[in-house]
């Protein structure tokens, strides 16, 4: 509706302009790239109708300060408290010349209840009688993010990209976590079972310069420098983060082609909020990439994308890095724990859209390169390992009235022998998968520490791959991993315009089990991690995105491999679950 108002407003404005310069003949409608339309004679004027205003008479106009404010004359008042309607602070009108300001504020509140494998504190237990490794698993998390954003934009943004934009997005975080065992939240068992933390992170700080338009359709080249969001594919399989970089991007051929070329560094993250830090050393890690989107290929409605990325990690030369809770993050406490860097190249082919009624997303990656010191074979000298891994994911879906039925499949290759010099496990740079239920699923949302198998997680928080990283935020990619196989189905039910219910059921397993067998010094009887079942609701009471309430619940029915590794439901453990309540208020 707001968009409509803007269009209306602009339409009015252009009408007025037309009047203002109406000395010439009326011009026929012109569209770039189309032949000029022939003029058509108007039908005879009905003599009974009121005569149109004569062209040369002085017009009865209401003077307004500028064209942006014309609708005030019809009673639309600027209310800076109202983010939904006409608002100068939301860049609906310039503040001076053609400079616009866009202020945004989002309150993102999460309350999370969960149970996941939790070890008893090694040197000290939270309670007497804790005589086994596995402790009590219930945890809860309260997390409040206040995302504020200030943009200063030059240029009329209705038809064409802005000429210049400055943006600053600080995020304020407060979190409170409660667990049942010592030494889970902090490495010092005396820190107890609760942790409160706060952080301010700068998630965007960039200038975006519109270099040029290269066609009448506003195909363009732009450059954006600074901390900015970047997603390398449609679903965040490879990289989705906000990091400092330089990105050249634009479109061609009436927006049928879109390209991005960039170079990014990576800021250290704040351990508990996952936000960017300032003042910490910038990570010795670079990302070079280029991608190209082609719309309506091979059919109208499907967009394909090719991407090539090079992640150059030189953290093998750095001192060990400990997170703010005191846990070693780099090098991973795994294998020989030798510091190591890597050069990994990703070649990907992705697609998103629909073939007729069939919606489809697909993603294929090959990852190849070198690890400077294989953490399992670097015994008497650094031994390189060749990265040879691949990834494929597909999600077909189809809509039946208010129901969308989905299937999802994913395969990330695994390493079957940690003691050779091939690293055949696929790992992403910084995954944020919007897939298979995303954060409403247990497996993707919750970390599962590989208790007894190193200071790594079987899968990290907000990650899907079984990649044995220390964490997504601080850890290096690890290509000596079991790999991931996911097969599942889901459905979205648009029960009401303001209420959507989604359900997902996925089976997750390791592609290979040898790496974990070595780490735990334990044979596994199965590769199955288990069934992840989840239900999620999204409720938008006012039909708009400014107030969104989400709730979800997920559980993992442990499979054979998982039961080999952890105390799972039954007599020795409890059911692992993840329940989320999320309120998002957007200004």
């Amino acid at each position, binding site marked *: 509706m707001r968009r409509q108002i803007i269009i209306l407003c602009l339409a009015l404005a252009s009408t007025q302009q037309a009047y203002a310069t109406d000395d010439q003949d009326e011009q026929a409608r012109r569209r770039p790239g189309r032949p000029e339309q022939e003029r058509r004679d108007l039908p005879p004027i009905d003599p009974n109708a009121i005569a149109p205003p004569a062209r040369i008479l002085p017009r009865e106009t209401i003077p307004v300060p500028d064209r942006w404010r014309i609708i005030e004359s019809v009673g639309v008042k600027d209310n800076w408290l109202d983010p939904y309607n006409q608002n100068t602070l939301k860049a609906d009108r310039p503040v001076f010349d053609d400079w616009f300001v866009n202020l945004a504020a989002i309150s993102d509140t999460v309350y999370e209840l969960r149970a996941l494998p939790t070890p008893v504190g090694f040197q000290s237990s939270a309670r007497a009688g804790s005589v086994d490794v*596995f402790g009590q698993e219930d945890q809860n998390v309260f997390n409040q993010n206040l995302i504020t954003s200030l943009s200063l934009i030059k240029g009329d943004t209705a038809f064409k990209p802005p000429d210049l934009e400055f943006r600053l997005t600080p995020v304020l975080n407060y979190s409170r976590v409660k667990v049942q065992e010592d030494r889970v939240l902090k*490495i010092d068992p005396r820190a107890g079972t609760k942790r409160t933390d706060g952080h301010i992170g700068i998630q965007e700080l960039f200038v975006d310069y519109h270099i040029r338009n290269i066609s009448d359709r506003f195909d363009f080249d732009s450059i954006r420098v600074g901390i900015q969001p970047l997603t390398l594919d449609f679903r965040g399989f490879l990289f989705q983060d906000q990091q400092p970089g330089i990105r050249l991007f634009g479109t061609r051929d009436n927006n049928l082609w879109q390209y991005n070329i960039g170079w990014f560094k990576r800021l250290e993250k704040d351990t508990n909020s996952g936000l960017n830090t300032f003042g910490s050393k910038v990570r010795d890690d670079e990302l070079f990439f280029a991608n190209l989107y082609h719309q309506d290929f091979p059919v109208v409605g499907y967009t394909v994308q090719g991407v090539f990325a090079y992640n150059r990690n030189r953290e093998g030369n750095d001192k060990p890095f400990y997170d703010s809770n005191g846990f070693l993050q780099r090098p991973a406490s795994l294998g020989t724990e030798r510091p190591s860097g890597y050069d990994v190249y990703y070649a990907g082919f992705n697609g998103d859209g629909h073939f007729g009624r069939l919606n489809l997303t697909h993603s294929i990656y090959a990852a190849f390169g070198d690890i400077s010191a294989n953490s399992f074979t670097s015994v008497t000298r650094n031994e390189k390992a060749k990265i040879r891994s691949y990834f494929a994911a597909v999600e077909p879906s189809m809509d039946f009235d208010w129901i969308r039925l989905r299937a999802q499949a994913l395969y990330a290759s695994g390493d079957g022998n940690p003691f050779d010099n091939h690293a055949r496990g696929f790992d992403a740079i910084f995954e944020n998968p919007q897939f298979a239920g995303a954060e409403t699923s247990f497996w993707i949302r919750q970390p599962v520490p590989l208790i007894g198998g190193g200071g790594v997680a079987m899968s990290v928080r907000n990650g899907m791959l079984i990649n044995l990283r220390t964490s997504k935020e601080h850890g290096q990619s690890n290509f000596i991993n079991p790999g991931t196989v996911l097969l599942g189905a889901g459905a979205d039910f648009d029960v009401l315009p303001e209420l959507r219910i989604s359900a997902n059921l996925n089976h997750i397993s390791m592609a290979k089990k040898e790496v974990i067998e070595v780490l735990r010094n334990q044979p596994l009887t199965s590769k199955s991690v288990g069934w992840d079942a989840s239900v999620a609701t999204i409720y938008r009471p006012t039909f708009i995105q400014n107030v969104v309430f989400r709730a979800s619940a997920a559980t993992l029915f442990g499979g054979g491999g998982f039961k080999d590794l952890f105390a799972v439901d039954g007599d020795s453990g409890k059911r692992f679950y993840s329940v989320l309540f999320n309120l998002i208020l957007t200004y």
Partner: protein
Amino acid sequence: MSRTLRFSIRQVLTSLAVVIVFLAASAQAQHLTVDDVDRVVGQALAEAASRGVSNGSIAVTDRVGNILGVYVIDTSVAPMLTVSSGRGIPLGNGLEQIELPAVFGSLAKALTSAYLSSSGNAFSTRTASLIVQENFYPGEQGQPGGPLSGVQFSQLPCSDLLQFGSEFGPGPRRSPLGLSADPGGFPLYKGGVVVGGVGVMADGTYGLDAMVSDYDRNLDELIATAALRGFESPVDIRANRITVEGKVFRYSDVDLADVNTNTPSLVNLANYVKVAGYAPAGRRAGSIFGTITSGVRPDGRRDYPALDVWVLDDGQGATRYAPRAALAPVPAAGGLSALEAQTIVSDALTIAFRARAQIRRPLGSHAQVTVSVVDAESNVLSLARTPDAPVFGVDVSLQKARSALFFSRPTSAAELRAIGQQVLIPGVLTIAPLGSYVDAMQQFVGPEALSNGIAYAERSVGNLARPFYPDGLTGFGNGPLARPYSVWSPFNTGLQLDLVLGDIVARLDGSERAPQGCTALPQASSPSPTPGPTRLANGLQIFAGGVPIYRGEQLIGAIGVSGDGIDQDDMIAFLGLHNAAQRLATGVGNAPAARRADTVAASGVNLRYVNCPVTPFLGSREQRVCVGK
């Protein structure tokens, strides 16, 4: 076609199996010959010469610790070593900066590698270095100390369990310096079984590797690697293939590619020197492990009818430590009966045979350990082992049993206070009165500590005996049983070493003193034909794997387990005792939950009692097997 193929595959597999069984049988019969000893030493000599080493010592032992030869490169000058952790801790702090004949170093290194290794794991002295430091891995901040912190002070020359004397005989035998963490000691293998160890002491420093992220080119290790040629352990069972907490152990920082030589030099038989109290001059063949002469042999289902366990032998065919009734308290007074002692050891070993090994390969191997049970006065009531358990665990299991017992006794505070200042080397090495440790304990745990009958498991003792408290965390001082970190090192641990240092030092002059019971603690007041052992007659041990035994509220003994991962050792002791208690139903069992050390907050932090491992059993998904027991 496919049927014939399958058939022929089956034939091949069958014949392979036969061959494997035959090989395994013959493999068990392996031992080091005199020629082997000469070859190992000759290979070391060639490498030493290529590196311009003019003096040093090379020792070869068999698996049970007999010295097969101690070679000195230049007998005109006795090579020396200096003990040093490399942290600049001055003389006067335990063994730090003490100068000793290098032969002791080479000997300790050879014996360490032989003792730590088995058919399922090949561990070197570098492996030992990794697991006895203040953090595991060394240098990894905030991580608890090495899982075997304190194991370096086992196999002590004063041990009442280990065989004594210079002459070749049954094992297991003692080491002049305990176990060594100085790189340059490797196990020797023939046919896949460990037959002994080689230790080289040429660089003059008896230390450890505190910096594990780099690659050392350690002289001792280079020479020992050359010495090892032809006797290498199977690749798949080396320390660097075995993980604990996801980290591989370290085996060696060098390999044959770093070695200069590949043919042995001629040995000069006159350079095989005598080491008083340990080895006569000359060299000799090693014993065959598992025979009566080796001192370790199958029980033959005599004392432990239900199990294929091994026991110690006196070299004449008589079992050492066959199950017997407690001397104090006697069974009539609530003490353990012979049946109870035997049942506890049997049930513990039954757990071991089921337990997933943490330090052995291939995957799916069961744990291999030694189990000791003592009475309330430290007398050994029963001791047995699984066949391939590493030999070091024989002495350590008894240390653990006695240590858990000692800390659980209400008399320990007074007994420690009774040991005053000890002047070991006048003007150089003095040990302060041990009462200071009691003071520290009472400050940490409460004024009644060590006199109120709290049941300490070995894990609880370990919590208190680390240079950082809580274990691994810097900045808050040392545990009450440890030295402050400024002077702490694996060569100066605290109470553990202070109890036995006097005896170690007294023997370093080469005098052949009979075992004195290691510590100055009082002798057990047990009525027995021979004098009972002192409280900690083979030394205090300070890592997990032992729990006290109670009958109701009465402390009547302890069980100690050693040989696999510490969580496994814990479980085998704790659960073995529990299962025996269930079977016996005589009131014997683990400490009542209410008096265990995990009910005690020491300096604001709960102690641990035991920590039973993840996925404890082979072929089972059971978890949390110890809770509530």
